[in-house]
């Protein structure tokens, strides 16, 4: 867990890679589309995507002749939990408990 979070944070430490990630987060995109939207070469985009994939933040899928990248929900959830911190996570759980019907409680 800690190691994978470390890898995730390192993956997002690079501003260009973060931009790639944010574009993929907005909607699934192919390498060529990303290269067209960013001031970096196609091989550079591929390299950034490889790092993001190894960090568990994106997954890829072959769509016809293209490889399309999209968010990996589990990896993103782990990152979100980590960054939200103890109290934000706790208050979300508290909200769920407070809004649950009384009869559903122990």
């Amino acid at each position, binding site marked *: 867990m800690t190691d994978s979070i470390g890898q995730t944070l390192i993956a*997002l430490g690079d501003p260009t890679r*973060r931009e790639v*990630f*944010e*574009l993929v*987060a*907005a909607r699934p995109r192919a390498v060529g589309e990303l290269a067209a939207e960013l001031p970096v070469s196609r091989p550079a985009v591929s390299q950034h995507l490889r790092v993001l994939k190894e960090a568990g933040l994106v997954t890829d899928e072959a769509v016809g002749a293209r490889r399309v990248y999209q*968010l990996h929900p589990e990896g*993103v959830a782990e*990152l*979100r939990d*980590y*960054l*939200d*911190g*103890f*109290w*934000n*996570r*706790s*208050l*979300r*759980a*508290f*909200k*769920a*408990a*407070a*809004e649950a019907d009384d009869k559903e*409680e*122990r």
Partner: protein
Amino acid sequence: MSTDTSTAVRSEIMVEAPIERAFAVFTEEMQTWWNPDHHLIETAEMIVEPRVGGNIVDRGPDGSECRWSRVLAYEPPTLFVFSWDINTRWELEPDPDKTSEVAVTFTAEAPDRTQVVLEHRHLDRHGEGWEGMRDAVGSGWSDLAGLKDAIEGRPPFPG
């Protein structure tokens, strides 16, 4: 005492429940929402002694107890303040001068809606290494707002 935001962590949430229920779930039913991984001992039950000077007690399945917090204010249904008697090595801190505190205020926005604001403050009282405690209880999002928007499905770039 003034609240220096750099030594405090703040979190708030809107709850679709009456204020009395929100206060009761936060205090009397703490174990229903407290992260089970965040106890100093194996905990079967959490008890908030409902008075100033009481404790928050984690009770183990064998009856052992960990009194890790003192109740500093108990004013149902609007205010609950408790101490954080845990040091930077995540052990019990016996010296009250080296503990931080958590203030939780409940405000009725509507009969069935309650605003809950939590402030974990005076974190610097934990002494050397206190920033680690702040980072553990607080949010890491401050420099990553664009990333947060991206993950949550909003457009990463304005316009």
